[in-house]
């Protein structure tokens, strides 16, 4: 391959400056700031701060509520990731078989993708409205009084449901294009080799979708951890109370509601490390990933 060179070393640096500036201003600087604040205890009125070392971290570890929220976050992430992937895969497999009207069917599923998270949360609010929400009524038919924002489990259920609903279209698009990139003749060969449709799916289709699936797994975990903020905020109406919340939401609640910048910063540093670990894991797996040709 031909490599183009620059006459001076200043030009390339100059060309990189805008990009580096953006990264520095919007990523490294806040990150460094967060790390720094996590070692200080803020005066509740914001007048000053004192260095406390790792106190903010050890406080978190001892905090039962924090552990409870961490645990909820894990369960929430697993549920959202699993159901978003599973439902999207199911829909994609079905959509792949549709020949007539395939386009409108796909569009119907994909439009949800365009819905902003707070709007998705708002739709959730409407569906679960205490007095006239259709889902509240439906659940009421089964003898359960659904109370969003009051009952812990009910609220958690609504959070998972709306988050999954919001994420399914993204996964659907990827799974569908993954399915369509499997050569037709390979599927036909399987049709001759195996009479069971589910057998063919698990033996041939699913393994060939694995690279797509792995990529989506990481995307979905990240989504459930971080991008569900808007959904959660809308569903608990900014009134956390006893409601379930994820770690990211807790950062916001402690930092901006509780004015505990130090503790909140320590939490975000922990989350940063989590993302870092996830990214390293992803790249490791991608390197090892089997490339089919």
């Amino acid at each position: 391959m031909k490599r183009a060179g620059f006459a001076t070393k200043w030009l390339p640096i100059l060309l990189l400056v805008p990009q580096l500036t953006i990264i520095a201003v919007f990523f490294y600087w806040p990150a460094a700031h967060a790390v720094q604040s996590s070692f200080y205890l803020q005066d509740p009125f914001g007048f000053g701060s004192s260095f406390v070392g790792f106190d903010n971290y050890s406080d978190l570890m001892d905090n039962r509520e924090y552990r409870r929220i961490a645990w909820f976050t894990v369960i929430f992430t697993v549920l959202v990731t699993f159901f978003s992937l599973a439902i999207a895969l199911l829909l994609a497999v079905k959509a792949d078989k549709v020949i007539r009207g395939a386009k409108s069917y796909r569009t119907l599923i994909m439009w949800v993708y365009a819905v902003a998270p707070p709007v998705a949360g708002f739709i959730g609010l409407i569906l679960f409205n205490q007095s006239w929400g259709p889902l509240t009524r439906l659940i009421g038919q089964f003898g359960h009084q659904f109370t969003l924002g009051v009952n812990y489990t009910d609220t958690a259920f609504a959070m998972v449901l709306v988050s999954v609903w919001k994420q399914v279209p993204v996964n659907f698009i990827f799974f569908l294009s993954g399915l369509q990139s499997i050569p037709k003749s390979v599927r036909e060969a399987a049709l001759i080799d195996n009479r069971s449709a589910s057998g063919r799916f698990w033996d041939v289709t699913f393994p060939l979708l694995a690279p797509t699936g792995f990529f989506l797994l990481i995307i979905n975990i990240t989504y459930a951890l971080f991008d569900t903020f808007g959904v959660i905020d809308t569903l608990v109406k900014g009134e956390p109370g006893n409601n379930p919340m994820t770690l990211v939401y807790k950062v916001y609640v402690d930092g901006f509601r509780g004015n505990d910048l130090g503790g909140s910063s320590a939490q975000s540093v922990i989350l940063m490390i989590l993302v870092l670990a996830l990214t390293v894991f992803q790249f490791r797996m991608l390197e090892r990933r089997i490339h089919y040709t």
Partner: protein
Amino acid sequence: MAQVHLNDLHKVYPNGYEALKPSSFHIEDGEFVVLVGPSGCGKSTLLRMVAGLEEITAGALKIDDKVVNHVDPADRDIAMVFQNYALYPHMTVRKNIAYGLQNRKVAKDEIARKVDEAAEMLNLGEYLDRKPSQLSGGQRQRVAMGRAIVRDPSLFLFDEPLSNLDAKLRHQMRIEIKALQRRLGVTSIYVTHDQVEAMTMADRIIVMNAGRIEQIGTPEEVYHRPASTFVASFMGAPPMNLLPGEIADSALRFAGMELEGCGREAGPIVFGVRPEDILPDEDGALMLDVEIVEELGAHRLLHGTMGGEQVTMHVGKETAVSTGPLSVSVVPEAVSLFDPDSGLRLS
């Protein structure tokens, strides 16, 4: 082993395109039938209908006296070799070959034995633990063959299995496939658009054109007694010379030539003669104005005009040739006559 009956098999695709006009034929036990025809004539469509990969619009498909129109591909007891091999990319060669057997509840040691046997037969022994992406085209082709033969099917279906190989390998595999089929004695349908493959491999050839069967016959019949001008010009390289002649006084007349004994009604006619059935002859009534001499080593092709028509003739390497006029004659019994309107053979 099986017999295959097609009874007015008809295919119209959902978009309304009629890919196969109602067609009927019968394939004997152990026969090797080659479907040949130009691109888009419906060969793959027909084969895929036999495989069960394409729905049958009308007509009946029988394998061994059992109508299988609605039988699953997996239950038709067939094996298919695809043009692009269609190997499972995530499975090793061994798994690729074994997969069909595993789903048929064959015992493990039996599968292992059969896979080894097939690998032995196809010289795949050292590749069994590789993935298809680590094989050459020819090796992949063998794996696809292996996948077909371990199953001991009663019918082999091949859809242009050699068209992705280079000329030398294609020649070699052609012979191997034919030998393998002979040895196993499995009824086979083989699709190709290469008429050389058709001639060399087939017990019987089915020539197709535009969704229609033009002729069914042994390679000799198809070559020497083509059923239509289409078959005459499709089979053979170079193809048969087709020339406009005239019948008068029960003789065929063309550019000074007169062939007696063509007892037909007077009128225009198309007659065909193979390049090798035109012979240099000092007393010949015909004059070929040779324009190009094509040197092919073992023989030569002479291209020129005769009576205003383009004609190709074939001469052995011992015949001295040069461009310019050459006296020739045609072998009378090798002449085919065709109706000038329908293009059908008159005999």
